């Protein structure tokens, strides 16, 4: 089945720093989403981005579907950005690979 790899697994930054999180996937997909899980366990969708670039405030994401990767950019990090960031892909037509999550990048923003 499709493999999803996220890097780095852990990232520690000072408040105000910028960061780039990467999601690689092993096959073509028609759906990719980025999620943030805060330290209290709540999961929130950030972007639905099967291709192209989107921005929402300090966060932006780019997916290059032909090269099978997506990037999540966080600018001017705040402590509230801490948590785990997951990407999830979906490959329609393959009954064994409905929605597959990466293992996440754990981000710590230090005050």
């Amino acid at each position, binding site marked *: *089945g499709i493999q999803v790899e996220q890097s780095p697994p852990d990232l520690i930054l000072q408040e105000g720093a910028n960061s780039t999180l990467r999601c690689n996937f092993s096959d073509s997909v*028609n*759906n990719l*989403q980025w*999620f943030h899980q805060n330290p209290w*366990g*709540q*999961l*929130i*969708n950030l972007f*639905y981005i*099967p291709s192209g670039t989107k921005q929402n405030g300090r966060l932006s994401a780019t997916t290059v579907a032909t090269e099978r990767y997506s990037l999540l950019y966080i600018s001017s990090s705040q402590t509230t950005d801490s948590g785990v960031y*997951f990407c*999830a892909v*979906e490959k*329609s037509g393959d*009954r064994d690979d*409905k*929605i*597959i*999550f*990466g*293992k*996440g990048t754990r981000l710590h923003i230090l005050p």
Partner: protein
Amino acid sequence: DAGITQSPRYKITETGRQVTLMCHQTWSHSYMFWYRQDLGHGLRLIYYSAAADITDKGEVPDGYVVSRSKTENFPLTLESATRSQTSVYFCASSVSLERTQYFGPGTRLLVL
């Protein structure tokens, strides 16, 4: 309140018992999903449903049963709980597979 809710939020049970986790959404979303989250495995899809009375297996369906008699509810049943089913379970809903998923707060299940 509108949104997606899960109950119970915490559950302790014993091996062999039947457990049902409830998920309710008020958006009339067609799609609903059940995931489990474990250290080292991230989130894995158990089952999903495209509409009432339509369900399909995800990545890890063994040991679980789902039903969807009403659009707004998607219960997940562990027919005979095992220790390996100790996990945090998340329910989610979306308009379609290609659209944003919205997650419930999760249910922490401990099987002794």
